[in-house]
């Protein structure tokens, strides 16, 4: 019995090692997407990348004003929006300097997201949008999913479809949480709509929208903007609160 368990665990961790150790590579690209090889010291020489480019930890990726890039390796989707800069440390670890990205996976993972100031680890599966904020932290917006997110100072929080969390500071902690209209995000997000292949979690996003509809009491006539400091979050109002 003990040997069987040992073998099972060995097989699981070996599979996980190969799966998560997989290096992401470009599977779709549109517009201008450049990279800088950070392994070359004292030289900052951007060069264009294309489909099939392996996204090693040495490559800092930067997208132009209409540039977008996607990596889909072993069912783990990464999408970078326009005017975004960041790098993959591995297929489960991304550093976002600025801009926004989408992560999507149907299987449980440990995914590390970091920005200039903040770091958080997500345990679970789901479709998540990360947006870097001016204060050096980021917005963590799960469209759907199961699991929890952990920061060094803020402990862990269960993720809820449509509930945006702010990750702030270093050591990182959680700012306020906001329930966000997933349907509106779905309609207006280019990270979801401007790529040729649909996300495999589309049906689950539909279910998350349905749950929001069942729990809905009202919508604010406002939109959330950037977090300019650790205490300031921009809210753009466009009318009265609708009950």
């Amino acid at each position, binding site marked *: 019995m003990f040997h069987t368990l040992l073998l099972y665990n060995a097989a699981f961790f070996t599979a996980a090692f190969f799966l998560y150790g997989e290096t992401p590579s470009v599977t779709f690209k549109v517009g201008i997407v450049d990279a800088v090889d950070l392994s070359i010291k004292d030289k900052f020489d951007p060069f264009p990348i294309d489909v099939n480019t392996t996204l090693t930890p040495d490559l800092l990726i930067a997208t132009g004003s209409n540039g977008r890039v996607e990596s889909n390796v072993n069912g783990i989707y990464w999408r970078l929006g326009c005017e975004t800069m960041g790098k993959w440390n591995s297929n489960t670890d991304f550093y976002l300097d600025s801009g926004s990205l989408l992560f999507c996976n149907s299987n449980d993972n440990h995914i590390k997201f970091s920005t200039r100031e903040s770091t958080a680890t997500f345990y679970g599966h789901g479709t998540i949008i990360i947006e870097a904020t001016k204060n050096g932290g980021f917005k963590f917006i799960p469209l759907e999913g199961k699991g929890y997110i952990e920061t060094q100072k803020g402990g862990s929080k269960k993720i809820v479809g449509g509930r945006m969390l702010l990750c702030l500071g270093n050591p990182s902690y959680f700012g306020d949480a906001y329930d966000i209209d997933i349907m509106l995000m779905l309609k207006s997000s280019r*990270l979801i709509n401007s790529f040729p292949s649909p996300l495999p979690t589309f049906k689950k996003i539909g279910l998350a929208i349905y749950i929001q509809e069942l729990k809905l009491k009202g919508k604010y006539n406002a*939109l959330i903007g950037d977090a300019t400091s650790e205490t300031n979050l921009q809210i753009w109002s466009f009318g009265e609160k609708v009950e």
Partner: protein
Amino acid sequence: MIYKFSYLSLFVSASSLLVGQINSNRIDSTDRSLPSPVEESIKNKVNDSSNVISSDTGAQRPLILTKSGLSLDFGYNTRVSYKQNPLGAPGILDQQADLVWENSFNSRAKLGVYDLDTFVLTPFLGGAWTMTDYTHQNADEAIPDLGVLNHNTTTAYLLFLLQHQSGWAFRAGVMYSNDRSAETDTEEYKEFYPSIGATKAHTINEYLLGVLDLSAGTHLGDVEDADGSTSSSHTADELDHIDATLRYSIIYNLDNFKITPSYSVSYRKYDNGFNFDRSDVLQSISLDVDYPITESFDLSIFSNYARRTSSGTDEAQDSYSTLYDFKKFDIGAGLGITASF
């Protein structure tokens, strides 16, 4: 709900009717069914007017959500309709035409929202009290005043709705209903109706949404003084039957109007007492127009044409079709107000 006079009562002399000997005995169960919250939700969905420009992340509009999903709705509906054959009498369409006024108070509690990964479970508990009044008098008809059929209906139901990520919504529940005569304050009919159903909506184009609804259930009724006869073949459970219904609707959004043409076909099988070995096919086409005046106040116009064909024979070898085949046409308008908490 369908009331119908007995076959023999159609031939009762006008004089006996005039002296108040109208017998409003019941020979049909109800057409009520468990509500389909998914269909209601699809129909009530208001287009979001907040058009925002696309961005990479997308617009982030904050919402106010309840923590558990518990909610309570109260509503009042009033409907006035012209019914060309309100009693569902066999033969020609235009019989005992009447103006029928229905007033209904209803409530529904949503008992939480439970995320089961690929399903979302929502239990509902609801009920309604409805007053039905036949308002028109016509001396030329066999029965000049149908007011003797005025009745009050009480319904209560428990419903479990299971929304699957594929888009199919399944439901299962039980409804209790009870009809009491408003004139004599006596219970005429009561039934339990356990049923199951499934609904799926699909987009036809930008403006049209198709909704397929399938349901099946068992009517377990108790009818008082069935058919007004002392014949031994009549039993309190003779209106019990199973039914299976398919309905297809198209929802057309035109500005704030929701225009919904529907077709339904229902098969019903009876096996008790007088109705032994009877089967019915009920087909119906309808057109509803809904207009929300405000978020909780709406106006509707509705019309429906229904046709029933019965097969089988009673113990006297008389065809059921002579008793139960009918054509009906209704058209009317209604107002509804709903308060949600």
